[in-house]
């Protein structure tokens, strides 16, 4: 995929009070996806007016992955029994997501490694990725559940975004990072030097998120497939899909045919390794019947298999799963348990 490479072009100024106006202007030409207030949290969805955008919460409950890998995606339509296929209609207006945090941007590079590597390129994903514009926002102050620092994510770095906002006093300094981004801020004034200096100081003084020790975890994972720890840790897991479905990097999917009358559609939908059905074979055999086996898969995939295959850890420390897990099975705790474990290695 020809990505617009990130390079700092210029810095613009957006007073906070003009934010709604800025979004309204974008809405004239683009589909804008932004966090919208729900009952005590926000959720990324398409907005129709700038006032709908809610920045009260750092991270929306859902991740941005659904705009690249939708939970419900028609790959094509068909007529049962006939030999004709037709494409699903594609969206007309180009989309923008505002704002995207650096952890979620990193998560996209993980999805890229799956859906757009040298060997396989998934046209559905690639097309959405190509059309999307990302307006990032720096985190000067993490949430209690953030642990992006663990993965060397600099929460004030806009790499991968078209525009990148940093809050300075009553304004945002907008770093223009791509030519695609440049077209979005035509009417904004340049940021004054003084504020740019201030931004630099703030960035240097940012409060970093929690950093967990990963080296020990990864060492341990290589030898702990049969460890009793999995049973212990998974004892409370409900095997639901909350963690994986909200996770910005989890990307397992199912493909099914959905026929209603004379129209069929081939559907790609999210799947999740925590569901017992995920590994159910047609023979009736299921290699992962236990909660512990499924939790192990989720952790192993993120911290062992994926890094081995793609040289990337498939977690970005956004903490969504920490917040959403109904039984408070905290991935940070799993990682520290694994890191401090002295359980004997399996044969």
């Amino acid at each position, binding site marked *: 995929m020809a990505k617009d490479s990130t390079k700092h072009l210029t810095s613009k100024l957006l007073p906070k009070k003009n934010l709604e106006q800025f979004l309204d202007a974008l809405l004239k030409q683009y589909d804008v996806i932004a966090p919208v207030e*729900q009952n005590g949290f926000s959720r990324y969805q398409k907005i129709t007016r700038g006032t709908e955008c809610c920045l009260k919460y750092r991270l929306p409950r859902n991740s941005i992955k659904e705009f690249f890998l939708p*939970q*419900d995606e028609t790959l094509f339509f068909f007529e049962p029994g006939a030999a004709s296929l037709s494409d699903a209609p594609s969206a007309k207006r180009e989309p923008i997501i505002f704002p995207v945090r650096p952890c979620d941007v990193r998560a996209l590079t993980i999805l890229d490694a799956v859906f757009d590597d040298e060997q396989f390129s998934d046209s559905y994903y690639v097309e959405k990725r190509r059309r999307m514009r990302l307006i990032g926002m720096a985190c000067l102050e993490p949430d209690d*559940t953030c642990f992006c620092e663990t993965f060397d994510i600099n929460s004030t770095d806009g790499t991968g975004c078209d525009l990148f906002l940093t809050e300075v006093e009553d304004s945002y300094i907008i770093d223009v990072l791509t030519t695609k981004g440049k077209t979005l801020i035509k009417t904004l004034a340049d940021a004054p030097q003084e504020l740019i200096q201030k931004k630099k100081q703030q960035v240097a003084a940012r409060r970093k998120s929690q950093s967990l020790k990963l080296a020990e975890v990864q060492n341990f994972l290589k030898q702990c497939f049969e460890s009793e720890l999995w049973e212990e840790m998974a004892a*409370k897991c409900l095997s*639901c*899909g909350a963690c994986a479905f909200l996770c910005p990097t989890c990307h397992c999917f199912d493909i099914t045919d959905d026929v209603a009358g004379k129209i069929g559609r081939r559907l790609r939908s*999210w799947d999740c390794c925590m569901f017992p059905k995920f590994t159910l074979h047609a023979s009736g055999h299921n290699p992962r019947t236990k909660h512990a086996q499924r939790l192990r898969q989720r952790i192993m995939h993120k911290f062992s298999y994926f890094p081995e295959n793609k040289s990337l850890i498939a977690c970005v420390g956004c903490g969504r799963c920490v917040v959403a897990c109904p039984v408070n099975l*905290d991935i*940070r705790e799993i990682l520290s348990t694994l890191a401090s474990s002295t359980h004997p290695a399996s044969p």
Partner: protein
Amino acid sequence: MELENQIEHELRERAQQLLAENVVDLIIGYGRGTLPNRVTPVFIRKPQDANMLVWNNHCQLNLVSYLQRMQSSSKIGIVVKGCDARSLVGLIKEKQISRDRLHIIGIVCDGILDTRATGEPPIPYASCQHCEVNVPPLYDILIGSPDEIKPKKPSELDAELAAFEALSPAERWKALEQEFSRCIRCYACRNACPLCYCEECFVDQTQPKWISEGTHPSDIMIYHLVRALHSAGRCGECGACERACPMGIKLRLLTQKVSRDVAELFQDKPGIDLERPPALHTFSTDDDNSTFL
């Protein structure tokens, strides 16, 4: 000592005793969570671990949903609130767990705080504000004193549910569609519910396939409507399903509405009386037939 701390203190003492005297070999209770307003389930097997148990107004899970997994324990102690005990009574009546295997540690509960509400001071969950079972209907030991509980308003209906009931059927449908449009089909609601214990849920069946994958509104609605029907006359109104939902969906619009309908049609409140058969498991010629098509 505050009431909560007193309960916690007594809970730990009793739990330690139960384990030390081999009355139970496992206690399922609440332990300290990793976030300020959360607790997490703990499974305690040694008397010296009893001090891991906590009790506070964030004990929002219904631990009864873990019972069926615990096949290897011969006698289980379980910490229950009043509403949790209702589902436990249901499970015993449905022969999912034998009463003899249980040592029920009932706690007098004054309501669990709504972690989703952002206002100050924190308010209890809607289902708790109108709770009528502060004292569990079934227990072996009871911790806490019913006299210390502030009187609730059981007769009054929770405002959101009342507003929902006041709608016309068409408007109700719209309201449900709107509410469930956020559903991501993670099934946390089903998995958190002690009464959703089917080995294979209808949504997971592939032959026949009742609903499609993906998030088509009709599939989402079928899931929720069928679940509501499957729990009709059984649901103990614990609210665990609603609290498990990561998308903040008000599941009680369905579950509690159906419970109210059952109460009205069959004069039954599920999970209170161990002897009385569940309303939808029996037939009487006097039953209200007005809902038959």
